């Protein structure tokens, strides 16, 4: 009786106070995670698809959207087949998950993961894998073969995403190191940003890149996509608390602040240097802020979020307008410039701005200097692993499809009509 009461009592307290406590299903936590998972889902086939599609030329808008849409579909399937167990199966040597949950074997509607059904946890995590790989597509649009892309998606989730997810969240070595990554800055954004960069370099530039104007088919759709991404990101970061509690609330608010500040700081930078504040800049800035705050969302306070966002907007702008030009690769929609760079900045910044009273771990500013090294190490390992493995996986996909690049006449005609036999608009 006593024990029963204790269980009841605790299950009504803020969940943060209960970490590690065994307990039953909490309908409030489950309700939030159901909504959050739906919100994260929307990010890929709608948010990212429009964000990217709007930036591609109108003759390639459907192909660009299709890369996100199909990435979502394939990732969802791979995830329940073997991705989940590779990431969250029992730990094998701190490197990868075991295979006991292949095809979700043994998980019933009653199985719990913390206070929510494990099947919901599976779904939630699956949406992360999907958006990670979809982000990378931004680097290679308008010239990658559709078939190469589909194969790349399957391989990348399996050999690149699943291991890194295991290291950070599945009980792997980065988790044991104490690396902080609240909602996937390393796993999702650095990982995909690097994958994009590697592919962009291997694949080469688009015809006439840098010589002719490549006008975005629709900045309106890009802004709408950014808004949907932002909406979904509340599920992404807020849901990473896995509970409807103070930590989720913090992550929510802080995410909003960082995105807002970064949108403003990107636009302000543009305004200063180029005299025109663009909507494309505001949208890209918001996404930059969202990326940078992702690893930090449960660990920093409003002030930290403000500074992280401020830098993120400027850094994203720098990545796109300065770095890319200088280094000369064609990271078409800046998966690296926006996601890669800001993922790195976010991971480091988490080490700097973490606040003990928020997430339990103090950061550099509170005297915990070693955390900076832990974070940096996690970044470096992810960068190196992702670069090498993404390259390998890309090479295999390229081989299997007789080269990764569409023929020149397809590139000129546009992939929508040549590959899909469709046009984005017939107005």
């Amino acid at each position, binding site marked *: 009786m006593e024990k029963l009461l204790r269980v009841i009592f605790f299950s009504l307290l803020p969940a943060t106070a209960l970490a590690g406590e065994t307990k039953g299903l909490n309908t409030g936590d489950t309700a939030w995670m159901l909504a959050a998972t739906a919100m994260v889902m929307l990010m890929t086939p709608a948010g990212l698809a429009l964000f990217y599609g709007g930036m591609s030329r109108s003759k390639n808008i459907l192909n660009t959207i299709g890369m996100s849409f199909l990435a979502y579909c394939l990732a969802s399937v791979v995830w329940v087949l073997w991705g989940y167990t590779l990431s969250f199966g029992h730990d094998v040597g701190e490197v990868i998950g075991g295979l006991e949950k292949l095809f979700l074997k043994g998980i019933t509607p009653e199985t719990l993961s913390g206070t929510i059904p494990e099947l919901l946890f599976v779904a939630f995590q699956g949406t992360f894998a999907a958006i990670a790989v979809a982000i990378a597509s931004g680097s290679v649009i308008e010239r990658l073969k559709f078939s190469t892309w589909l194969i790349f998606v399957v391989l990348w989730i399996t050999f690149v995403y699943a291991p890194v997810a295991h290291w950070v969240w599945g009980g792997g070595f980065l988790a044991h190191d104490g690396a902080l990554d609240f909602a996937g800055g390393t796993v999702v954004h650095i990982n995909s940003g690097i994958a994009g960069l590697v592919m962009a370099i291997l694949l080469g530039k688009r015809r006439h890149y*840098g010589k002719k*104007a490549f*006008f975005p088919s629709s900045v309106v759709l890009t802004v709408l996509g950014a808004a949907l991404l932002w909406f979904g990101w509340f599920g992404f970061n807020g849901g990473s608390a896995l509970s409807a509690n103070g930590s989720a609330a913090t992550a929510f608010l802080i995410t909003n602040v960082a995105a807002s500040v970064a949108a403003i700081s990107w636009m302000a930078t543009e305004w200063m240097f180029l005299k025109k504040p663009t909507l494309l800049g505001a949208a890209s800035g918001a996404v930059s802020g969202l990326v940078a705050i992702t690893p930090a969302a449960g660990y920093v306070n409003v002030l930290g979020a403000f500074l992280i966002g401020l830098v993120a907007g400027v850094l994203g702008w720098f990545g796109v307008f300065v770095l*890319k030009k200088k280094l000369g690769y064609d990271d078409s929609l800046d998966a690296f410039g926006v996601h890669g760079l800001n993922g790195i900045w976010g991971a480091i910044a988490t080490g700097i701005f973490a606040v003990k009273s928020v997430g339990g771990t103090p950061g550099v500013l509170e005297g915990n200097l070693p955390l900076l090294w832990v974070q940096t190490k996690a970044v470096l390992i992810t960068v190196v692993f992702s670069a090498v493995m993404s390259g390998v996986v890309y090479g295999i996909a390229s081989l299997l499809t007789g080269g990764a690049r569409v023929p020149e006449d397809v590139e000129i005609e546009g992939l929508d009509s040549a590959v899909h036999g469709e046009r984005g608009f017939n107005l």
Partner: protein
Amino acid sequence: MKKVEAIIKPFKLDEVKEALSEAGITGMTISEVKGFGRQKGHTELYRGAEYVVDFIPKIKVEVVVPDSLVEKAIETIMESARTGKIGDGKIFVSPVEEAVRIRTGERGEGAL
């Protein structure tokens, strides 16, 4: 008959149309074109790269008129389309040998 073809600035279309109507020229056909000339296009910035957009949106107005009205048409267009700034556009006059009204089969100037 002559075809009087004018390339004008888009926002002048309404004025030109009204002026022509007042001048008794009640039929015309317009289309959206892009022009390249002395007037330079603007610079667009997109994702860090700068591009000059050479072609400037213009409207082409075509009126086929009897020979007697050619001068009037030219003057009317000139007055209503002029802003005095570079890029105001051109008027070209060329011969038309026949005109037919599809509905009735009328030919010649009566078909206009």
